[in-house]
């Protein structure tokens, strides 16, 4: 669905250099701190910026040859951009109808009603949550095969986030050949939605793992200095000095649980893994 190989882009001292793949039927998450390069990656994929090097293939086509017809199969949410705030939902409908061959107007209208979006109010007067909902609705209302979503749940409360995530799950269930690339600061969203996750730091992919593996096999181990000196370090990915001793990130939780019964083993979460991958030291 989407293959990025050695994508490079420089802005001053920042250098993006990443490779990733999004397979059909999969929801792939991209996580990282602010300024890690997530939005730059999205922009390069969408042709909004010119990469300095590397290859991007979207839906089997080189991104440079990806034309307006091909874009019919793409649904996009950008974190800081959308339809002009001077338009209303009612204005957007004929625009979408004119742009997309398969715009599903009844579905769009039904979702607008369901989410309680005012149809005759200027978008610039919408709340952050309403804007976020509208962006996702426009991305999924034209039978796209690939969704590229940059922070789609930003600014939403828990209930609204859950509704949107449900909408994305339904979108995936309708066709097994669809795929989603999504970034989010809210790791809980990614844990429940994504099949695999890429972690980005300072323009580089520092970890790629299936979500199930990440949640089941990754853990943070907490220990004092004496235990740290003797513990098996083969499966420790990162370690970090703490006031009580050391925190270590492992991808072999069971090994440490079984062999070191007195060790504090904290179940891995995306937040914990990000923290350790970025702040910890590789052994």
């Amino acid at each position, binding site marked *: 669905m989407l293959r990025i190989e050695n994508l490079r882009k420089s802005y001053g001292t920042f250098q993006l250099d990443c490779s990733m793949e999004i397979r059909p039927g999969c929801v792939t998450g991209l996580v990282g701190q602010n300024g890690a390069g997530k939005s730059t990656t999205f922009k390069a994929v969408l042709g909004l*910026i010119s990469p300095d090097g590397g290859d991007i293939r979207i839906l089997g086509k080189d991104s440079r040859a990806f034309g*307006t017809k091909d*874009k019919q199969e793409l649904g996009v949410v950008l974190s800081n951009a959308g*339809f*002009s*705030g001077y*338009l209303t939902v009612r204005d957007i409908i004929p625009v979408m109808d004119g742009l997309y061959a398969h715009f599903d107007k009844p579905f769009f209208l039904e979702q607008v009603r369901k989410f309680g979006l005012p149809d005759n109010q200027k978008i610039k007067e919408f709340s952050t949550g309403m804007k976020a909902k509208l962006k996702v609705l426009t991305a999924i209302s034209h039978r796209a095969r690939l969704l590229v979503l940059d922070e789609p749940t930003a600014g939403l409360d828990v209930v609204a986030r859950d509704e949107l995530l449900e909408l994305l799950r339904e979108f995936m269930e309708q066709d097994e050949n669809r795929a989603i690339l999504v970034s989010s600061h809210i790791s809980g969203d990614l844990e429940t939605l994504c099949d695999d996750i890429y972690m980005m730091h300072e323009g580089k992919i520092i970890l790629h793992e299936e979500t199930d593996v990440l949640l089941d096999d990754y853990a943070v181990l907490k220990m004092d200095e004496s235990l740290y000196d003797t513990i098996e370090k083969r499966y420790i990915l990162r370690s970090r000095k703490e006031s009580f001793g050391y925190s270590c990130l492992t991808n072999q939780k069971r090994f440490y649980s079984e062999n070191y019964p007195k060790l504090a083993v904290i179940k891995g979460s995306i937040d914990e893994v990000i923290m350790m991958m970025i702040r910890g030291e590789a052994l």
Partner: protein
Amino acid sequence: MKGLLIKDLKLMKSTRNSLALVLLIALGMSTYISDISFIITYLAIIGITFATGTISYDEFDNGSAFLFTLPVSRRGYVIEKYLFSLLMSLGGWLIGTVIAIGVGTAKGTMASEEGIMVALMLLPMVLCLAAFLLPMRLKFEGDKSRIAMVIVFGGFFVITIMGVKVLQKLGIDVEALMKSLSAISAGMGAVIVAAASIALLLLSCHISIKIMEHKEF
């Protein structure tokens, strides 16, 4: 293209009060201004200004970046902006012409044939204005585009004056040259001016496409 045109028409809807006010002002002025070219030019320029204003609406909150994720190419976007600007400016020109001739005829100050001739003579100027304004607006955002316009028009006048002075220094009689140009038949002159205006507009569109193709969002 169709979707973009609808979008711009919808954006225009939010400026309908301003447009109505402009029309009222034009109507009011036409009753006491005898120079009909002013009314026609005024409405044509307003049409272009409102049309290029949709670029600002598109740019609001990084909207341009989002637009290019839709099935819209940069080339298609530019061509749509030219079409929409022509639609708006020619619309303004047409309304201005109708008002000017209508008021002139009612007052008995002008024959409609004369009014149509004046309006047709102003048409190339409207096209040239669109040809200059659109690349500027697409290249520079907000205030920068206004500054760039002042520099370009200022530069144009300076170059014209300097050109005349250089010709005079070279011993070429500029007045005689102008007279020889006016000796060309009206029909031939109109064809030359119309062809030059269209060529300028096409060149301008080509430049605008290049500008947009190199833009990053």
